[in-house]
């Protein structure tokens, strides 16, 4: 009982500050955006605005409820911890985040070409390569051994594979987390609104969801990125704005049973507005489902971005795994390692999120004996 009182107290105290911070920050962002639009010199790229906006929302609306229900989280952690694969997944994801955050400062520039050291195999491997000698006008075989400076080798332009992989980790995580953030937020809103309001709103939203679901996700993605240009910002936004349909349906069916429950009735009887009921009563009650959906949709999003880059529709200004894989596929016969490394990273990342998602689902499910 005291726990609930305390969490209520925290929620009230945070509510006021939260609104103030949100207003101040959006004012600052608005000002810089105006400057960015009307003054030639760029302060932030569009992607940075997205990061700041989503980061703020995540901190302001995510941390207080997490802090308030820290005992519940501890309980779930104890349950989730028993699933070893889920813990391994979590460990890999944390490692990846660390790699993405500090890795780029420790490695060489992933875009720096050096034709002196092209097609160097990973350390411990030696390959034979035929080289054209302009003086004797003959092909001679030269053996190249992996070297310490390039632990994973280099590609056909002499770019360091390790640096490219680390840069790719950053891109994949950014796209995965932010696009999923947008998609899950949209899906949650549409799902809860649809279920709570019902009637024609529900009908209209669900028909719209049907239409969106009818498009094959990846082909629609290709079309939109082709039309609007291959920029990371656009890719994140488009994946987010097209990937919410499954979430919306799941959240809707979950909310349908919640909306007739007593605490919602009581809240309505006390005069709470629709938006308050949705945000303060319905959404928090499906939060565990939201977390599971989010964790399990990140792999799909990361793969979608990688596939886009792989077919040549990635942002050319950044080095992503899909792009490295594309370069590797074109040189399979001379440098196999370029295609192998990014794929292994993609595979491990997807596996890690899948393991963690499954573990979380079991931990959140009170019926499952963990």
């Amino acid at each position, binding site marked *: 009982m005291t726990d609930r009182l305390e969490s209520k107290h925290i929620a009230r105290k945070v509510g006021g500050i939260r609104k103030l911070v949100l207003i101040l920050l959006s004012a600052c962002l608005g000002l810089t955006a105006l400057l960015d639009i009307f003054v030639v010199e760029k302060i932030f790229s569009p992607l940075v605005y997205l990061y700041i906006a989503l980061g703020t929302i995540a901190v302001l609306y995510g941390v207080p409820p997490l802090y308030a229900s820290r005992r519940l989280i501890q309980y779930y952690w104890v349950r989730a911890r028993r699933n070893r694969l889920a813990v391994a997944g979590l460990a890999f994801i944390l490692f990846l985040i660390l790699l993405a955050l500090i890795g780029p400062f420790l490695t060489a520039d992933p875009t720096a070409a050096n034709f002196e050291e092209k097609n160097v195999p990973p350390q411990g491997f030696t390959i034979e390569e035929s080289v054209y000698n302009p003086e004797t006008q003959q092909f001679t075989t030269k053996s190249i051994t992996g070297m310490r400076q390039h632990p994973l080798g280099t590609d056909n332009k002499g770019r360091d594979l390790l640096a490219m992989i680390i840069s790719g980790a950053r891109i994949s995580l950014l796209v995965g987390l932010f696009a999923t953030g947008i998609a899950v937020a949209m899906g949650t809103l549409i799902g809860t609104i649809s279920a709570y309001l019902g009637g024609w709103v529900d009908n209209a939203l669900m028909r719209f969801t049907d239409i969106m*679901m009818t498009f*094959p996700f990846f082909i*629609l993605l290709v079309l939109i990125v082709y039309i609007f240009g291959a920029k990371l910002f656009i890719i994140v936004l488009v994946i987010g704005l097209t990937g919410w349909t499954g979430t919306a349906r799941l959240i809707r069916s979950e909310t349908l049973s919640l909306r007739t429950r007593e605490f919602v009735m009581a809240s309505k009887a006390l005069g709470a507005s629709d938006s308050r009921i949705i945000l303060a009563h319905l959404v928090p009650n499906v939060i565990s489902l939201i977390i599971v959906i989010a964790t399990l949709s990140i*792999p799909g999003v990361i793969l979608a971005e990688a596939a886009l880059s*792989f077919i040549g529709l990635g942002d050319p200004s950044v080095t992503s795994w899909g792009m490295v*894989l594309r370069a590797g596929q074109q040189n399979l016969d001379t440098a196999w390692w370029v295609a192998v490394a990014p794929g292994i990273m993609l595979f491990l990342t997807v596996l890690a999120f899948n393991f963690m998602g499954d573990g979380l689902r079991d931990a959140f499910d009170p019926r499952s004996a963990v």
Partner: protein
Amino acid sequence: MPMKKSWLRDYIIKRLFYAVIIAFGILTITFVLVRVGPSSPADKYLANVAARGQDVSQVVAAIEARHGLDKPIYEQYINYVGNLARGDWGWSFSTSMPVTELIKTHWIYSFQLIVLSSVFAALLGILIGIYSAVRQYSKTDYIATFLSFIGISIPNFWLGVMLILLFSVQLGLFKTYYDTSIPLFSLANLKQLILPVITLGTGMLAGYTRYTRSAMLDNLRKEFVRTARAKGLPERTVIGKHVFRNALLPLITIIMFDLGSIVFGGAYLTEIIFGIPGLGRISFNAIFADDYAVVVTVTLISAFLILMINLITDITYTYLDPRIRYD
């Protein structure tokens, strides 16, 4: 029975009506996307025209008049829908033929890939799933479960590249590229489709194995299975008739849903990797040739196909399970 017929007819009519609405939604979304997009179909000409030193503004006006871009937006929309309905899906600049012709010559390559992969994945997945469920917690079950987890997580386009690296580049067993000169209905064609089918099918296979296993396990614990065993039916009948038939229904939904969401995107990538000249490959080529009409048409066709598949799934359902009523 006549009762069922009448509500089924109503249901089919209702579903067709919804399908028409969704079709219009699809058309509207693509229309808006193409119109709102920063590059218009005319832009591709203009670059050429400007390069040749001709008067750009005159050409712009001519192109806009030719494509009806000078008309008000609602008229453009009506024209767009009208043209599609009449079978005029636009002109492919890069291949100099109507898009419909292009589709007619290339759809079969996508079709064979998708059908073969789905059959491969469904048959093998269901068999492994059943075996896994019947021998739950056996060594085979553990291996199958583990492999299916890997199969689900492996990015299929990377799998394709790795298969080429191993079997084509290193071992030289297959060609790295799809040969269109080989007749469609021949063993050689089947052989060159092996790697693409594995590439596209592995993810599905893993998924179906998992779904079959869990659907079978759900039903294995039911009362009617105990009854069937108690009355002395052979185990084969119990598994095949009583458990599997009940597990089949959710499986069909998943297979059909996959056909829409995963297979089309997966086939797109698989065709690109192996150079199979199906719809995905021509759309991919069109992207780099800036051939607008082809990219849009491939998207539209896939969406319409999925719409049809969903419709058929729902209707088949009512026949497979007489208990189902949609009211």
